[in-house]
């Protein structure tokens, strides 16, 4: 019995027991359902072992949506708790756990997964490739992310959630103040999914540099591909810093070292520095692909080419470089002295310049365009003013001397949600709606989609704009309650109301998927939006080899040229196509990583050693394995293409 006591939850509450039951029932339902419909074989062959970038992309996006609801539930709980003064819905400890998991889940397991999912689906299609450079590695990346996400999510029913904030500052995150295994979960969940992300970074840089269609020079790449390239460069240079920080954190917590302790020569500020040396570039890892999506969407629905292509690329390169030079602005108040603060204050403000260039480029793309206000375009048009407000408050926060007033208040919370929600979340919803017909072969309903957009936008404004005011009035972030005399009550109630509208928006978005799945016509053709880039040159649904013939490209809008200017995309005849084989190794290795992480969290060393041996065993197996992929014969390709053509013609 003693062995099992460690798995007990340290701060149980009816809410946690309810979610335990819910998780258990859902898992049983899934297993029973799959068994009943005899889908295990299908699931294993077509999805769990797949190395197809499109399916991996979809799995990323589905996981991201699940995490969005987990993180969203946390958000609603926080708003509910602070809706009225002296509320007792959550106690302090539970509130700490909720804001910690909300931050981690939304950044690492929702936004990152959404972005990488989009890149997976879109980038190879946009550059005219048949898969990524390392398809097997791509599957490993996804399953490592998934293992990390699951590890993090079981924390609140087994052993307790992390409670030191998503920034996890030491010494608060040390064993002295965070006694449960919660922070251990944080370390290993991020470590495991971080390794996966690093592999994705390498994979996509090589894919984009080496696998572009003939004629597509770097300066003729679609803007989303450019943003993906730059993002992945940032990933490769930022994530190793997190790896080391997490390693040190683990050693401090589980092996009694003194990296971040205040005794025996340790330095607690080292964690804050390392965390933000990774963490600030991470912010740009999130926002740059979003910028890429807006560029695609705005140009498509203004029916104009993107204004200022070169300055778009240049400003993204500049942003990526500067993203490594601003990290200290996250802790201006922690005593660096005026010189250091001054320098980082200036670099932070300077980042507004390339970002501003991009904003003007989008506006000028719309200038004199024939704008169609579809759902993706609505999100993009909504993004511009809202993101600008977030950017301006960011410049306010960058003023080091004034930051002493804003630091750790709701003003900051309002600011970063103001850039992340209209910036990243709007982009993901725009991109999802935009590429949905390419992914699933039907369109999402526009009317429900627009309702979703308006609920989300109005809800967002009501939820976060009041926080600017309460923040300036001195309401601290991460406080589980406040007294009535502070007068924060009414505005917090307004925030809660806004959060409710946002929740309705997400329910509408999910309902839209269901509704469109049932009622939307399937005759959308290959190019329902009258779009411009290469991914729309593939038939619907995209065959697993993407392009039967490698396209030849002459500009960044090759597909548009082929429609309007008589450019011939497909010149060659169909030849046999080489494709990679599916493999069960990625999911097995990720499963072993899960066991490794879980055992490490609880210090069950037998499990750690066994899983480590298993992981190295898989790697050894891989190096001796002979896997040359397979060829699809010409006849099979012709047959598939014929079927797709009949289908697409019927639909036209």
């Amino acid at each position, binding site marked *: 019995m003693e062995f099992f006591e460690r798995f007990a939850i340290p701060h149980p509450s009816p809410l946690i027991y309810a979610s335990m039951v819910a998780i258990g029932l859902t898992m049983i339902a899934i297993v029973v359902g799959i068994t009943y419909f005899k889908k295990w074989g299908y699931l294993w062959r077509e999805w769990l072992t797949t190395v197809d970038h499109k399916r991996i992309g979809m799995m990323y996006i589905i996981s991201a949506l699940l995490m969005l609801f987990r993180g969203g539930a946390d958000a609603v709980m926080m708003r509910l708790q602070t809706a009225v003064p002296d509320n007792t819905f959550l106690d302090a400890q539970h509130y700490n756990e909720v804001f910690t998991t909300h931050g981690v889940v939304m950044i690492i397991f929702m936004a990152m997964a959404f972005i990488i999912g989009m890149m997976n689906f879109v980038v190879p299609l946009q550059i005219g490739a048949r898969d990524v450079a390392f398809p097997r590695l791509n599957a490993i990346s996804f399953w490592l992310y998934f293992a990390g996400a699951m590890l993090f999510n079981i924390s609140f029913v087994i052993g307790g959630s992390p409670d030191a904030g998503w920034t996890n500052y030491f010494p608060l995150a040390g064993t002295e103040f965070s006694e449960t295994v919660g922070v251990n979960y944080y370390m290993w969940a991020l470590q495991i999914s971080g390794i996966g992300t690093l592999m994705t970074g390498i994979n996509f840089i090589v894919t984009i540099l080496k696998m572009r269609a003939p004629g597509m020079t770097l300066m003729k790449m679609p803007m989303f591909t450019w943003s993906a390239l730059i993002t992945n460069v940032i990933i490769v240079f930022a994530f190793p810093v997190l790896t080391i920080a997490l390693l040190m954190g683990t050693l401090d917590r589980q092996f009694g070292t*003194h990296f971040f302790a205040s005794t025996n020569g340790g330095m607690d500020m080292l964690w804050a520095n390392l965390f933000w040396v990774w963490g600030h570039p991470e912010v740009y890892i999130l926002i740059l692909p979003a910028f890429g999506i807006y560029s695609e969407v705005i140009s498509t629905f203004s029916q104009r080419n993107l204004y200022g292509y070169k300055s778009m690329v240049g400003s993204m390169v500049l942003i990526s470089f500067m993203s490594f030079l601003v990290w200290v602005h996250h802790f201006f108040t922690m005593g660096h002295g005026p010189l250091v603060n001054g320098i980082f204050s200036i670099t932070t403000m300077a980042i507004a310049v390339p970002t501003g260039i991009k904003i003007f480029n989008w506006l000028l793309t719309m200038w004199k365009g024939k704008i169609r206000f579809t759902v993706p375009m609505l999100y993009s048009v909504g993004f511009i003013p809202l993101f600008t407000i977030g950017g301006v408050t960011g410049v306010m926060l960058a003023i080091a001397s004034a930051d002493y007033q804003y630091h750790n208040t709701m003003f900051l919370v309002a600011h970063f949600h103001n850039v992340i929600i209209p910036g990243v979340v709007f982009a993901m919803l725009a991109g999802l709606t935009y590429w949905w017909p390419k992914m699933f072969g039907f369109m999402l309903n526009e009317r429900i989609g627009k309702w979703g957009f308006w609920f989300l936008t109005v809800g967002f404004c009501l939820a976060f704009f009041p926080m600017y005011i309460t923040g300036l009035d001195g309401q601290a972030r991460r406080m589980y309650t406040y007294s009535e005399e502070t007068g924060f009550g009414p505005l917090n109630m307004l925030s809660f109301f806004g959060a409710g509208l946002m929740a309705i928006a997400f329910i509408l978005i999910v309902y839209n998927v269901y509704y469109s799945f049932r009622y939307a016509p399937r005759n959308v053709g290959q190019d329902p939006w009258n779009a411009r880039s290469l991914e729309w040159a593939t038939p619907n649904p995209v065959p697993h080899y993407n392009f039967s013939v490698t396209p030849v490209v002459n500009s960044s809008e090759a597909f548009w040229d082929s429609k309007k200017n008589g450019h011939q995309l497909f010149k060659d005849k169909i030849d046999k196509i080489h494709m990679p084989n599916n493999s069960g190794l990625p999911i097995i290795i990720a499963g072993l990583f899960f066991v490794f992480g879980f055992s490490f969290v609880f210090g069950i060393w037998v499990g750690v050693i066994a899983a480590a041996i298993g992981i190295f065993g898989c790697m050894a197996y891989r190096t001796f394995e002979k896997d040359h992929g397979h060829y699809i014969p010409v006849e099979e390709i012709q047959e598939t293409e014929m079927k797709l053509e009949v289908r697409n013609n019927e639909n036209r």
Partner: protein
Amino acid sequence: MKIDNTGPLEYSTNQNQMNILGFWIFLGAEIMLFGTLFASYFTLENGVGSGPSGAEVFEITPVLLETIILLTSSFTIGLATHAMRINHKKATLVFLGITLLLGLSFLSVEIYEFIHYYHVGLTLQTSAFSAILLTTLGTHGAHVTFGLFWGLFIFLQIKKRGFTPETTNKSFIFSLYWHFLDVVWIFIFSFIYLKGMM
């Protein structure tokens, strides 16, 4: 799979070229990894608490021995790649084997060094300095250990399968990895040991 016979075998297919480029990018990430360790080392170097400092525990003999062994192994892996380029299987295997043996002896000396630190009272828990020192050395040592197994597997594959686009590609990438570990060691030698002993 198109085979291009104009260049060396390890570059002969598209996939091979992508593997090599991908590994270079991975080495870029590794530079950041060790860069972070070095930056943390310089930050915590003087945080010796009540434990000994570097000057008190570093011994020049094992460190010099490790340096010479690892530099030599970098030379022999270079010879192995050269032998591979001129299609000399036996010489490749011999030099690869010598490289791995040198790696093993490096590791033995490093283990001796760690035992020595333990005896003079410098363990992971002693101070921030001891923790970052042992973490940095340990990360490098773990890379070498990993490399030993990896190199052994490549040795076996070349022995069994001869030079193919795959085996040459793997051993070329392994040689990049091994040289990289040598470069990291040079930084460890200069900025941890020599700086610490001065």
